[in-house]
């Protein structure tokens, strides 16, 4: 079985600026892939190339076995795409908008009607089906967008930042749908986002984009292991800390860095120095309120690339 998305050295340059820099990707049938990265890291541009909405400068991408630039129709028949800010015809109702999409996809009327009703039900818009979309809220539009994408019974769904502008309940709901799509219907989901929590929960695999490159790729578990490199981060809450204590903590063996803001102290080290740190706090007459050692989470990794992008 070949991959649904297969990108090799995919590159997009705008003049002298390289938006996407030789990325390699492979998405399998039924997989949920989280495409993460800060704004402007080249996520959307990569997606546009996968759909033939812009031409790659170099490299190749094949979606469902077809080249989207040469044979866009074959790709678009099998792929549902929810753009970053999805729009509908405001003077048509939700159901009418879906009917139009069904017509564009050549779905016969008698098949389309029950399917539209079913999808409106899935996205919980059955009550608003006959309201003009102009009256829809942002969340409702997003949900209608999801119904619109699923109408053609796609093999692969590409969602460009679908949680943008959704409230927390809406995000949870959306993630539930995504999980169900992949688990029950075997639809592969390519999910681009700059929010992390959601991705950790529903994705089988993630890729992190930074400055147009995929800097990390793999399962969430393998990524944390990959970047952890045996390091520890120990956080303490200390009452009555002083400069002498700061010095003592920084001087502990294997400590790379120790910093303090108010009562919060963060120690980065190669080994577990909790016992030594507790002893040092006690020695300097301060009181230890709380201490935790955590592994680097995906969020830390992500934040690091985020900060790099900002800097």
């Amino acid at each position, binding site marked *: 079985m070949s991959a649904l998305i297969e990108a090799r050295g995919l590159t997009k340059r705008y003049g002298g600026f390289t938006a996407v820099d030789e990325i390699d990707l492979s998405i399998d049938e039924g997989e949920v892939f989280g495409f993460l990265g800060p704004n402007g890291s080249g996520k959307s541009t990569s997606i546009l190339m996968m*759909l033939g909405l812009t*031409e790659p400068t170099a490299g190749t991408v094949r979606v469902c076995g077809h080249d989207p630039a040469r044979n866009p*129709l074959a790709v678009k028949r099998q*792929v549902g795409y929810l753009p970053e800010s999805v*729009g509908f015809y*405001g*003077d048509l109702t939700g159901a009418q908008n879906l009917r139009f999409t069904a017509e*564009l996809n050549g779905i016969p009327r008698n098949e389309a009607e029950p399917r539209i009703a079913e999808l409106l039900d899935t996205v919980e818009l059955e009550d608003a089906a006959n309201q003009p979309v102009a009256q829809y809220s942002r969340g409702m539009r997003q949900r209608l*967008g999801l119904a*619109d994408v699923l109408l053609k019974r796609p093999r692969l769904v590409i969602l460009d930042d679908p949680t943008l502008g959704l409230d927390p309940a809406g995000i949870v709901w959306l993630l539930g749908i995504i999980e169900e799509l992949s688990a029950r219907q075997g639809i592969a989901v390519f999910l681009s986002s700059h929010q992390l929590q959601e991705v950790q929960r529903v994705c089988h695999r993630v890729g992190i984009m930074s400055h147009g490159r995929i800097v990390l790729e793999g399962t969430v578990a393998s990524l944390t292991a990959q970047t952890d490199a045996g390091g520890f981060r120990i956080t303490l809450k200390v009452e009555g800390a002083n400069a002498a204590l700061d010095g003592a903590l920084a001087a502990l063996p294997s400590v790379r860095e120790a910093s303090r803001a108010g009562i919060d102290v963060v120690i980065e080290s190669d080994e577990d120095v909790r016992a030594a740190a507790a002893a040092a706090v006690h020695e300097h007459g301060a009181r230890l309120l709380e201490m935790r050692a955590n592994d680097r989470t995906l969020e830390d990794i992500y934040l690091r690339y985020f900060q790099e992008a900002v800097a």
Partner: protein
Amino acid sequence: MSALFWKELADHFGRRRFTLLLGLVALGLVWGAFVDLGALAASGRRFFFLDVFTTTAGVPISLLSFLSFFGPVIGIALGFDAINGERTQGTLARLLAQPLHRDSVYNAKFLAALLTLGLVVASMMIVVIGLTMFRMGIAPTGEEVVRLTGLGLVTVAYLAFWLALAITASVLFRNTVTSALASIGMWFALGFLITLLGGVLADRIVPEIETTDDAVRHVNVESWAGRVSPAGLYSEATSILLDPIGGRALNLFTIEPERLEGLLSTPVSAGQSLQLVWPHIVVLVAMVAVLLAVSYVRFMREEIRA
């Protein structure tokens, strides 16, 4: 493509633009009712159904001049937000994610607007002709029918030019307001300025008119400058079509003066008039084709970012 075509057509006849289109037909109704047919009959001319379109008797401005001045507004109104309107609405990316070719989007939009223009022009002309028949109690002759059909075709081609211009602007400019303003700017430039410039140019090239030759050259320079503009082409073509006697005056100066008198009292046949306006129609269609080609190339290669 047909799904999009019908949706576009429904849009044009939908509430947004319907008032405008209806207004044009209503105008035909008013003109048809108020044109002073008595004055036309008294002038002793033989072509009532043609004169109804060109006369100013009983109405402030002839129907034809009105079409020539304000027809472009209709063409522009149907096209200025064709592509960038979808973009602003956020529907363009969604539309192009469906299995249809990019050129289908473009073609469906152009054809739906063109058909709308055709229907509106035809309705308006039928209203005017119908009213005139009702008031006069006579039917148009075969010759008049041929000429009026020609007028309808030239008018649609003329409006199609402004439609194509507006669609091109909607591809080139991201903002619907910008494209509307650009289209209206072009309307002023091509509709009015060129005609004025033609006069200036003719005065420059032929400063003093002393002989018949000078007069011929002056008129030639002026009319060639006018032919750069679709409005110039349109007024030339319609005057040939609607005035079987005077319309040939275009070539007035190439005819020997002693033959002129006899010629001017005999109308030319409809076939000959059509032959005369054929180049005008071809040039108008060619202008449309050039505009469409420009926006087509641009749109096909464009990046569709949501």
